[in-house]
C-alpha cells in the first residue's frame, strides 16, 4: 500500500475551488510592476503566476509597498539571507515546526519502505527570469552536484546513502535511495532542502562543458583558471554567500538581488520578484513588501543603534543579546518598535563534553566513568551561575530536549542538577578519586592531580568564560582543577581529529530538533566531540581514527539507524525515545542551564510578523513564518 500525502492545505483547496468557481477574480500585483506590464516588458500577472499558485495567508490581507530594513554581520553572513529570502525548497515547515507542507512541490508520495519519494512540481512556476521551473532543472542540479569538479556537497551526492533520480515527466520526478530514508521530508523541509531548488539549467548550463563546449575558454576569458571555478562563482550551490554577489542568477525567491553583495558592499538590497509564485487567498501576488535592505556592517554597535533608532524593521539575529535586552526594552517608545519572543532551539547555555576517547588511558577511564560526571554535575551551583551571568533568566537544566519539544523528559532534563557538595564528594569518591594532594585536589589513579583543561572559544559566546570562571571555583571546592583554554575556532576544530583535548565547550544544539541533531544524546556526528572516535566508527568523516564504541553507544546507533529508516513519524518518535532512555541512563555530557528566550525587534507598523517564533538553523526563522505575507501599515 502506498501512502499519499495530498499536499493541499485547507486554504489552498478553498481558494482553488473559489478561483475555479469565479473566473472574474482578477489577480493583483504590486503597483511598482504596473508600468513594466503596460509597456510590455513583463507579461500580465495572471501569466506570470502558476495555474495553481501556493496560497499563503498572514493574519490579515496586506497592502503593497515598503522596504524591510535589517542588518547583516559583515560580508559573510549568508545565514540572514537563508533566514529571510532563500528558504524556498520543495517542501516547507509550518509555523509550529511540526508538519511538512507543500512548497515548490505540490504533492508527493512516499513508498512504505521509505526509499522512494515521488514529487509533483507546481505547474507553471517560473524562475525570476521568466523561465519555467521543471524537472529539467532538478535533473541538472543532481547531475552537477554529483560531478566531483563541482565542490558542492549535500544529501544529493551523499555516498553513505546515494540517491538516483528518475524524471517521469516535466513536473514529476522520483528520488530512490539505496537505504531507507524515513526523515527525508523533514530534512529537506529545513535548510538542507534548499540545495535541490537552487540552480537553473538554462543559466547555469552555459558554464558546464556538457552543455557548452566552450565553457573552459569562457571561464578563462572571464579570468578564471577553469570552468569549475567559474561555474562555482556564477552558480554556487544551495545558499553559499557567493550566490548573492551574482545578480544575474535566476532564483525562485520572493525577492531578487538589486545591489549585489561583494567585499566592498555597504548594503545588499533586493527588489520583488515579478514571477513569485505565491499569492494570498484574495489572489494578490506576494510578497507585499517591495524591497529588502540589508545593511552590511562589521559593527554590532552600529546595528544595535540602528535598531534603537527604528531603522531596522524586524530582526533577531546578531543584536538580540542578553546584555542588550534592557537597552532595547527601554528604547521601545523612542524607536517605535516592540519586542517579540524568540524561543531558541538550543537546550543549554553551556555543554561540558569530556573526551571519552582520550589517548591517556587514565583520563579515558575517568571521563568514561559515570560517577565522575554525576559528581561534577552535583558540584555545580547552577542557580548562582543563572543569577550572576543570566540575570536570573533560565533554570538549571541538563543537555536534554527543551520543554517545547515533543521529546521533553523532565527526569532527563533535571537529573543531577541539584547543588549538593556531599553527594558530589560521594560520587567522586566512587569514581576512584579518593586521595587528595596538599592543595585539596583529588588524585587520579596514576597519582596525578585531577586537572581538566577545557577548550572554549570565548569570541563565539562571551558568557562561556563567565560561566566557566564560576564553575572553576565550584569544581575547586569539590577537589577538581579546571583550567580554561580560550582558543581560536580553527584550533578548536583542529584538536578534535588530533585527539588533543580533555574537554570542549559548546552550546546545547538539538533542544527542539532533537531527532535531527542528537549530537549530545549519542555519538551522532563530528560535533559529538565527547566521543569523536566512536563517531568515526559509526558514520564519521575520518574512518582512519575510528574506535569501536562501548555497547550502550552501539545500541543507540543501531536504534538510530532504525529511526532513520522509519517513515512513520509516530514509530520514529517511539524509537528515538529509546535512544534518549539510554542517554538518560548513561549521562554522557553535563549541562548548566536552559537557554533563556531571546527576543526580536518588531517595528510597530509591521503587520503579520510573528510575536513568538522558534530560532534554529534547521528551521531558519523568520523565513518559515512567511515574511512574504508581512506588510507595513
Amino acid at each position, binding site marked *: 500500500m502506498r501512502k499519499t500525502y495530498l499536499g493541499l492545505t485547507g486554504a489552498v483547496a478553498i481558494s482553488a475551488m473559489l478561483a475555479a468557481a469565479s473566473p472574474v477574480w482578477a489577480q493583483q500585483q504590486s503597483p511598482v510592476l504596473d508600468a513594466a506590464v503596460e509597456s510590455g516588458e513583463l507579461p500580465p500577472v495572471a501569466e506570470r503566476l502558476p495555474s495553481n499558485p501556493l496560497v499563503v495567508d498572514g493574519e490579515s490581507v496586506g497592502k503593497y509597498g515598503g522596504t524591510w530594513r535589517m542588518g547583516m554581520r559583515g560580508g559573510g553572513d549568508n545565514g540572514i539571507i537563508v533566514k529571510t529570502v532563500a528558504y524556498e525548497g520543495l517542501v516547507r515547515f509550518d509555523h509550529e515546526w511540526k508538519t511538512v507542507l507543500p512548497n515548490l512541490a505540490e504533492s508527493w508520495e512516499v513508498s512504505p519502505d521509505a526509499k522512494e519519494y515521488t514529487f509533483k512540481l507546481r505547474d507553471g512556476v517560473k524562475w525570476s527570469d521568466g523561465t519555467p521551473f521543471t524537472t529539467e532543472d532538478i535533473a541538472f542540479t543532481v547531475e552537477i552536484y554529483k560531478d566531483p569538479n563541482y565542490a558542492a556537497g549535500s544529501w544529493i*551526492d551523499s555516498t553513505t546513502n546515494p540517491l538516483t533520480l528518475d524524471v517521469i515527466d516535466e513536473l514529476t520526478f522520483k528520488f530512490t535511495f539505496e537505504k531507507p530514508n524515513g526523515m527525508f521530508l523533514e530534512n529537506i523541509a529545513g535548510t538542507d532542502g534548499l540545495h535541490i531548488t537552487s540552480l537553473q539549467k538554462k543559466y547555469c548550463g552555459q558554464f558546464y562543458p556538457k552543455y557548452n563546449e566552450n565553457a573552459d575558454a569562457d571561464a578563462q576569458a572571464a579570468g578564471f583558471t577553469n570552468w569549475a571555478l567559474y561555474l562555482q562563482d556564477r552558480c554556487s550551490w544551495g545558499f553559499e554567500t*557567493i550566490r548573492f554577489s551574482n545578480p544575474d542568477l535566476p532564483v525562485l525567491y520572493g525577492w531578487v538581488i538589486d545591489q549585489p553583495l561583494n*567585499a566592498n558592499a555597504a548594503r545588499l538590497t533586493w527588489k520583488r520578484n515579478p514571477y513569485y509564485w505565491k499569492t494570498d487567498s484574495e489572489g494578490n501576488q506576494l510578497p507585499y513588501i517591495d524591497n529588502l535592505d540589508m545593511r552590511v556592517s562589521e559593527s554590532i554597535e552600529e546595528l544595535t543603534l540602528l535598531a534603537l533608532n527604528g531603522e531596522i524593521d524586524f530582526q533577531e539575529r546578531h543584536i538580540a543579546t542578553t546584555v542588550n535586552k534592557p537597552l532595547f526594552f527601554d528604547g521601545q517608545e523612542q524607536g517605535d518598535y516592540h519586542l517579540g519572543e524568540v524561543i531558541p532551539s538550543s537546550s543549554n547555555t553551556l555543554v561540558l563534553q569530556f573526551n571519552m576517547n582520550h589517548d591517556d588511558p587514565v583520563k579515558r577511564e575517568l571521563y568514561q566513568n559515570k560517577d565522575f560526571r554525576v559528581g561534577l554535575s552535583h558540584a555545580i551551583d547552577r542557580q548562582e551561575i543563572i543569577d550572576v551571568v543570566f540575570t536570573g533568566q533560565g533554570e538549571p537544566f541538563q543537555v536534554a530536549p527543551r520543554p517545547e519539544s515533543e521529546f521533553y523528559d523532565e527526569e532527563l532534563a533535571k537529573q543531577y542538577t541539584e547543588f549538593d557538595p556531599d553527594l558530589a564528594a560521594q560520587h567522586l569518591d566512587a569514581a576512584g578519586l579518593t586521595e587528595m594532594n596538599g592543595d585539596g585536589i583529588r588524585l587520579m589513579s596514576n597519582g596525578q592531580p585531577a586537572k581538566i583543561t577545557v577548550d572554549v572559544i570565548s569570541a*563565539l559566546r562571551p558568557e562561556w568564560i563567565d560561566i566557566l570562571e564560576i564553575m572553576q571555583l565550584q569544581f575547586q571546592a569539590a577537589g577538581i582543577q579546571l583550567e580554561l583554554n580560550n582558543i581560536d*575556532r580553527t584550533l578548536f*576544530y583542529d584538536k578534535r581529529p588530533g585527539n588533543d583535548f580533555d574537554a570542549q565547550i559548546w552550546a546545547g544544539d538539538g533542544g527542539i530538533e532533537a531527532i535531527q541533531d542528537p549530537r549530545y544524546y549519542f555519538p551522532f556526528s563530528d560535533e559529538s566531540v565527547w566521543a569523536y572516535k566512536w563517531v568515526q566508527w559509526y558514520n564519521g568523516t575520518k574512518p582512519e581514527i575510528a574506535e569501536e564504541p562501548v555497547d550502550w553507544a552501539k545500541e543507540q546507533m543501531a536504534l538510530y539507524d532504525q529511526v532513520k529508516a522509519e517513515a512513520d513519524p509516530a514509530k520514529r518518535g517511539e524509537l528515538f525515545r529509546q535512544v534518549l532512555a539510554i542517554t538518560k541512563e548513561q549521562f554522557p555530557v553535563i549541562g548548566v542551564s536552559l537557554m533563556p528566550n531571546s527576543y526580536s525587534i518588531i517595528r510597530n507598523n509591521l503587520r503579520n510578523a510573528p510575536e513568538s517564533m522558534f530560532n534554529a538553523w534547521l528551521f531558519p526563522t523568520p523565513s518559515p513564518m512567511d515574511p512574504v505575507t508581512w506588510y507595513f501599515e
Partner: protein
Amino acid sequence: MGLARCCPTLDPHLPLDGGGWEGVNPQKNRIFGRPKSMVQFIIRRLIAMILTLFAISIVAFAIIQLPPGDYLTTYIASLSSTGEQVDPRVIANLREQYGLGEPFYVQYFKWIGGILTGNFGQSFEWKRPVTELIWGRLGNSMLLEGMAVITMWLIALPIGIYAAVRKYSLGDYLATVGGFLGLAVPNFFFALILMYLAYTWFGVTLGGLFSPGFENARWSLPRIWDFLSHAWAPILVLSMAGTAELIRILRANLLDELKKPYVVTARAKGLPEWRVILKYPVRLAMNPLVSTIGWLLPALVSGSVIVSVVLNLPTAGPMLLRSLTTQDMYLAGAIILLLSVLTVIGTVISDILLALIDPRIRYGGK
C-alpha cells in the same frame, strides 16, 4: 641629535620594517658611506627600499601561514557554529582547487611570482581577484586617514607652539590636560561614546561613510557633502590620539630649541617675536614630525582597525582583520604587502624631506 631620536622611542607604533626610518639617523648612513650628493642619497634609499620590500613579503607570507589550519578549516568552523555541516569531500575538492595542500615555499613563489606580473591571487571568500577588492578600500583608508592627519596637524601645531612659548600658563596646562586625556582614552571607546551621544542627543546613527542613496553614486558636490557629514566622526576619532601625541612632542622639542643661543641672538638682533619662533626653532622642532610621515599610514590603518569596525567604515582595516580571521591569505597578504609598500615609500619621502629641511642629515654629518 636628541631631536631626531626622540620620536621613535615615544611612538608606540613601530613600523613594520626596522630599517627604513633609521636612515634619518646620520650615524646609520655610515653603512653606505657618506653620501656625496642628494642623487646618491636618494638612490641608496631606493635600493634599501626594494630589499626591505622583499624581506617584508617573506615575513608577511609566513605570518599569514602561522595560525593552524587554513581558509577551509576556518570555513568549516564558522559553518559549524551556525549548526551547518559540510561534507568533507567538498572540502577535499576545494583544497585541491585552491592549491592549499602545497608546501610553504611553493605557495610563496607562486604568490610572489603572480604579484610581479600584477596578479595578487584570488580571495577565497569572495572568489574574486584580490586586486578587484582592495583598491576601493585602500582609497577610502588613504582619504580618511589623510584627512585625519591634516586635522591632526592643524590642531596640534598651533597648540603645541602656544604651549611651548607660554610654558606653565593656563593655556599650556589646558593643552597638557587635554593632551593626556586624548592619549589615554582608547580610540574605539571614544567612537562608542560619540555614537551613543549622537543617538541620545540627536537620534542619529553614526556609521559608514555615506547615506544609502550615495553609496554607489558618482562623486558630485552633494556626495562630497554627504561624505563630510559622515566622515567628521571618524576623522575626529582617528585624529584625537595623534593630535595629543603631536602636541606633546612639539612642545618638548620646541622647549629645547627655545633655550638655544641662536634664538637669543635672533631676538637680540631685533627680529619680531613670531618670526624668531617660526623661522628657526619651529622648523627644527618639526623635524620628528616629518620623519614620521612614513609611518602615519600603517599606524593609522592598524590603529584604526577597531575604530573602523565600531564605526563600520569601508576602509582597509576591517577587511584586513576579516581576511586574517578567515585566513583568506591572498587577500590578507596583499593588504599587508601594499601597506608595507606605502610605509616604505612614505619613509623614503620623509627621508628626502628631512634631508631638504635639515642640512645635518643632507650631508650625513654630525
